[in-house]
């Protein structure tokens, strides 16, 4: 078993953040990653904040249901915000947005039974969510660059690299669902390699 996984088994935000699958598949470009990564980070924080309250305020048989409903409401709220601000983006991502919300629901149900989960851990969860959000942005931006040769900024028609966009992209597969996993796997390996080489120099 991965030692990092063992160490973080009780961190619901980490558990949620690990659920990269909908984000990895759905984030074909930076703006997609912004909506999907933000959804998971927001919903995961809602889950982390709800779990301690649910344990104190709700009777045991209904704790899991109460947490799931609050997390589902948070996911719906985020989707509502995306729909109001960027209807085209919502049209394209509604399947993945809903799925990312459900992922958080399932993992929140796991978090509510964690006995050491209390509000003092919330700042730590905030940092984990932020890191996850940044990782999702990096993934979306890499996929967009590899598949189109450009990175477009959200809410702008084209990004700073649009003029230099290549006619024949390096890796068109990066825009397909399988490309999400390939880029994610190679990305994790590169980060590991980088960390090791920095560690050797230090």
């Amino acid at each position: 078993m991965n030692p990092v996984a063992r160490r973080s088994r009780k961190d619901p935000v980490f558990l949620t953040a690990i659920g990269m699958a909908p984000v990895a598949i759905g984030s074909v470009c930076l703006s997609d990653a912004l909506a999907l990564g933000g959804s998971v980070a927001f919903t995961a924080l809602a889950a982390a904040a709800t779990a301690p309250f649910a344990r104190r305020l709700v009777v045991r048989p209904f704790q899991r249901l109460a947490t799931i409903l609050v997390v589902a409401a948070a996911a719906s709220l985020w989707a509502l915000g995306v729909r109001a601000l960027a209807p085209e983006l919502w049209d394209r991502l509604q399947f993945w947005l809903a799925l990312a919300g459900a992922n958080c629901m399932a993992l929140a149900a796991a978090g509510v039974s964690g006995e050491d989960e209390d509000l003092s851990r919330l700042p730590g969860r905030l940092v984990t969510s932020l890191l996850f959000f940044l990782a999702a942005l990096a993934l979306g931006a890499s996929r967009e660059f590899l598949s189109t040769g450009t990175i477009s900024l959200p809410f702008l028609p084209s990004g700073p690299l649009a003029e230099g966009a290549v006619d024949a992209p390096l890796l068109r597969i990066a825009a397909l669902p399988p490309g999400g996993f390939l880029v994610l796997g190679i990305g994790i390996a590169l980060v590991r390699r980088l960390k090791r080489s920095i560690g050797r120099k230090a």
Partner: protein
Amino acid sequence: MSLVGIAFMSVFGVNALLRYGAGICSASRGTTVPRGLAGSLAFLGSALAAGTLHGLLMRFALRPLGLETLDPFVFALVSSATGFALSLGASRLRGAFAARLAESFDRLAPSCAIYGIALAASGLARSGSAILAASFFGALGYLAASAILDSIRERLELERLPDAFKGAPAYFISAGLLALAFHGLESMLGPMFGGLR
């Protein structure tokens, strides 16, 4: 989209990889990959019940009212209710198998896997029978892919890989390649099965 397409979506869109890629989520309720006959039957039953109910609610209530954004909330209610009803039904039966079945129903209720199947079925299939078929084939595809991914994972542990690629990166890359194969299969077989609408 074809039945193969829905199976593909449910497999790679609903976090079979959550457990596969990270290796930690078998400890999480709701993301447990079904094990054994009882687990598989419970998964098929939950996916069929929640998928069909969710599909019908989407078709007759949420979409006509423009309330699709409430989808996760409605699913939470539907899946909890069906999970409770199925678990209650199984607990009325006697024997160790029925007890395992009841426990599996309870564990699977909020599963993102079931939700993904329900979502794909309701989004891609329009008629009642198509929703039912899509839910069933989605669940079957998920079970098949879980078994394949587990076998690949066991095999990968025996391989001599570069240190940076050991663990999650190798799992994600092999899953990506498997997803690519499913994608090709969907393009090839999809037209033979035809659309579901």
